[in-house]
């Protein structure tokens, strides 16, 4: 098995360490197996000392990576953590790494202490719903990684949020759409958040006609967010809600991808432009001379209002303008000259020109 030294000290590595200790808790570890497993992962001697009131004798255990107890020599701890439950210190854990500490040593002793606390004073583990909620409304970065581990989702996995809500307040507030497990990342589950229902879905998720039918017949409107890595999914939650607000009886499920740069109008945290497919594609097109020409044509078309006016201002035949717009539409993935996309195309150009 991989040892701590072989793991990258990035968010994926941190999640693997969390997951390692979570597995111990899930499967009913005791302190002896916690110590053996910790030594195995750390690949050095680890120890635990538990405070016992009214006893002067030290309740201390040390273990080496081969599972041997009380190994010699006893080195000074290279890193120590208190085992704390509700401000009460139950004892300490430590590792005895000879030489320089590893970048993940700190995470390792943190998790050892946390796991020891759970073993010594059993508490309920967070449910999958709580982990999902933690990802969408995170306290801090560590909480995010903990929930990634709890749900079995690698932090870099691309995911989306689907926000659903019944059309009227009289309808059942918990109304939501059923998402197939194939479209759900890890063990994430749908959660209720202030009368709105939130699902994590995979980055490749696209609503089927059946799902749209189901939304229509149960008077549900849904919005699907832009794509982001699981560890940053909270930053794109607003785009799911924004998309839902645009849903209607004709389009009961709106994908934020199809709102393009208009997503930047969504209230909430700043949205990275690289998450908006329209802007990514427009940037790519802008890298070539021919692409710049296509974008210039759209700019002119949007300013002048008609193909003919754009053609006049560019000294082109109007069919050339139409041809260029069709070509650009192919590249960016939507009809840039369609009336319903007017705002989307304009927003794309505004952001391109403004950035």
């Amino acid at each position, binding site marked *: 098995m991989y040892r701590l030294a072989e793991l990258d000290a990035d968010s994926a590595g941190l999640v693997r360490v969390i997951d390692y200790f979570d597995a*111990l808790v899930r499967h009913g570890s005791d302190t002896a197996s916690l110590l053996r497993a910790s030594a195995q992962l750390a690949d050095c001697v680890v120890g635990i000392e538990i405070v016992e009131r009214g006893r002067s004798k030290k309740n201390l255990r040390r273990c080496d990576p081969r599972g041997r107890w009380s190994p010699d020599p006893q080195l000074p701890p290279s890193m120590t953590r208190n085992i704390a439950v509700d401000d009460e210190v139950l004892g300490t854990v430590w590792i005895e790494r000879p030489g320089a500490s590893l970048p993940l040593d700190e995470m390792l002793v943190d998790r050892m202490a946390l796991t020891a606390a759970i073993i010594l004073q059993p508490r309920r583990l967070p449910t999958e719903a709580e982990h999902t909620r933690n990802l969408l409304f995170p306290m801090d970065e560590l909480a995010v990684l903990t929930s990634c581990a709890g749900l079995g989702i690698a932090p870099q996995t691309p995911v989306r949020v689907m926000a659903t809500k019944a059309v009227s307040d009289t309808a059942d507030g918990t109304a939501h759409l059923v998402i197939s497990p194939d479209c759900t990342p890890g063990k994430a589950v749908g959660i209720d958040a202030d009368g709105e229902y939130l699902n994590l879905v995979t980055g490749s998720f696209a609503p089927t006609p059946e799902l749209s039918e189901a939304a229509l017949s149960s008077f549900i409107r849904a919005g699907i967010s832009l794509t982001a890595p699981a560890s940053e999914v909270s930053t794109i939650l607003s785009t799911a809600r924004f998309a839902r607000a645009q849903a209607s009886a004709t389009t009961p499920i709106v994908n934020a991808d199809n709102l393009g740069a208009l997503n930047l109008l969504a209230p909430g945290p700043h949205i990275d432009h690289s998450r908006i497919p329209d802007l990514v594609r427009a940037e790519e097109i802008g890298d070539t001379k021919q692409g710049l020409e296509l974008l210039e044509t759209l700019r002119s078309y949007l300013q002048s209002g008609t193909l003919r006016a754009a053609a006049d201002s560019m000294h082109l035949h109007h069919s050339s303008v139409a041809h260029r717009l069709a070509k650009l539409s192919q590249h960016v993935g939507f009809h840039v000259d369609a009336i319903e996309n007017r705002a989307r195309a304009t927003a794309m150009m505004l952001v391109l020109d403004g950035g």
Partner: protein
Amino acid sequence: MTTFPTLDPELAAALTMLPKVDFADLPNARATYDALVGTMLADLSFDGVTLRELSAPGLDGDPEVTIRFFTPDNTAGPVPVLLWIHGGGFAIGTAESSDPFCVEVARELGFAVANVEYRLAPETPFPGPVDDCYAALLYIHAHAEELGVDPRRIAVGGQSAGGGLAAGTVLKARDEGVVPVAFQFLEIPELDDRLATVSMTNFVDTPLWHRPNAILSWKYYLGGSYSGPEDPDVSIYAAPSRATDLTGLPPTYLSTMELDPLRDEGIEYALRLLQAGVSVELHSFPGTFHGSALVATAAVSERGAAEALTALRRGLRSLSPVS
């Protein structure tokens, strides 16, 4: 994703740190497995043990079979010998991958160990691999005196696919009647290509070994002429579970793992050996999975390893003097 609530906590934690082996992609599976074992071999000490390579003539004009032959230092007189066959689904692994176990048997029990480098499927399908094991057995028996081993105390053992090859070799030895095998040592053996047991049917995503891998494994091993579990022409030396007569086989130790699709075929084989009058010690370890012994420091693995050594020691203990 199945979570396997009965999985032992130490094994569950280790599992999060084990690389995934995709048996459908053999070059990759071989490389991943060798790398995994390589780190364990790196700090292996050969103290108290001598290792040399032997070459046994192949069966019926087959190429020579390499044997990694371990002998304990400081012994007097002929010692018992274990013919050992490594695992790897018939298609991956090397004899060297079993060196840590061979060294331990030689050092702790004072036995010689003949670790067979049999040819792998699918490059060499049945009967090549089991013939290589049998050729090694013939060689050890025929050269017992010069190798310093006791020809009346030969055990044949293996792990996983090696367990299946060991059972096949022992059946062949019984039928040929040349080498008297004193003890059969089958760890988590792969015995039955028919894949019909409850564990083999239900365990489709268990760690390290599961039904999809088992299907591939038998396809690799039984070669192009194999038509699947219904094939009536599969040899008992390939799939020992197909043998209808298990009488006359040597005393046996057989271990199985709880979350292993091979669990039930192992237990059934043990049961049928018992019913045929063979003395059997059977042990199923709780909370374990196929190959979980790789996580050697887990308490349940230590228990399993200690018991395996005890069973071997008892299996090849000195025979009572015949008066």
